[in-house]
């Protein structure tokens, strides 16, 4: 077992445990903090795959901006912990069973599929995840979607202001 496999399994276990803690935390603020840990471990996976640009963007945009927005909204609302509505126990149980069977079905499908067998992911090599090749592709082949996304941001900003003003 080399160092890359140890890192992979450690990051995976960390991500899954943190994701489960997001669900079972009673306090929403704790959920947000656990979700930030999930995003950090996913960024670690990106670094392991040598997708350095996406790792940095993931930390800045998700762990930095979006999660701070969530924290800000939760603290603004000041929701009481004991007032939080809970679903009935059997509804929760049915939800867990449904999600578990979804997972089992997909894992069975992937295990059956022969086109994934023997395919390897290239770890820590390859330069397609660096900033230079991504920037060249983004500003030559994908320049129109890039500009459209700026229009999307503008409309999202106007929409958020209008919704929040009422």
């Amino acid at each position, binding site marked *: 077992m080399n160092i890359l496999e140890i890192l992979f399994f450690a990051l995976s276990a960390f991500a899954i445990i943190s994701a489960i803690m*997001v669900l079972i935390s009673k306090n929403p603020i704790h*959920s947000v903090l656990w979700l930030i840990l999930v995003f950090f471990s996913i960024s670690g996976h990106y670094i392991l795959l040598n997708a350095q640009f996406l790792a940095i963007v993931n930390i800045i945009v*998700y762990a930095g901006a979006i999660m701070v927005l*969530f924290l800000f909204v939760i603290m603004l609302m000041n929701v009481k912990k004991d007032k*939080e509505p809970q679903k009935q126990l059997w509804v929760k149980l049915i939800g*867990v069973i449904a999600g578990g069977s979804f997972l089992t079905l997909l894992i069975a499908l992937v295990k059956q599929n022969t086109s994934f067998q023997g395919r390897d992911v290239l770890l820590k090599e390859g330069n397609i995840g660096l900033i230079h090749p*991504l920037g060249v*592709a983004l500003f030559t082949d994908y320049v129109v979607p890039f500009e459209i996304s700026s229009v999307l941001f503008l409309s999202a900003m106007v929409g958020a202001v209008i919704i929040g003003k009422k």
Partner: protein
Amino acid sequence: MPIEYYIFLCLMLFSIGVIGVLTRRNAIIVFMCIELMLNAVNLLLVAFSKMNYGAAKLISATTTAGIDAQIFVFFIMVVAAAEVSIGLAIIVMMYRNTHSIDINFLNRLKN
């Protein structure tokens, strides 16, 4: 690293997100679980891009196969950021009207 390990990891993260959407009633937690599902899909896209790149690199050393997937992940992050801002604005508006963030209040959209 076999691609199946990455697929299993992402499936587990995605299913945890699905379970969260099904079992919680706090609208903010439900929204966070949707973000978790988006991130699982992003990780799977990057893993597949590196798989394709590894296969194409054996044929030509200067290939750029797989770069489209990483651009796609970038655009998914862009759209997710816009979606979060609108969604949180809607949740704040809902809280202001009902003084609760229970998603069962959204039942009234039905009739």
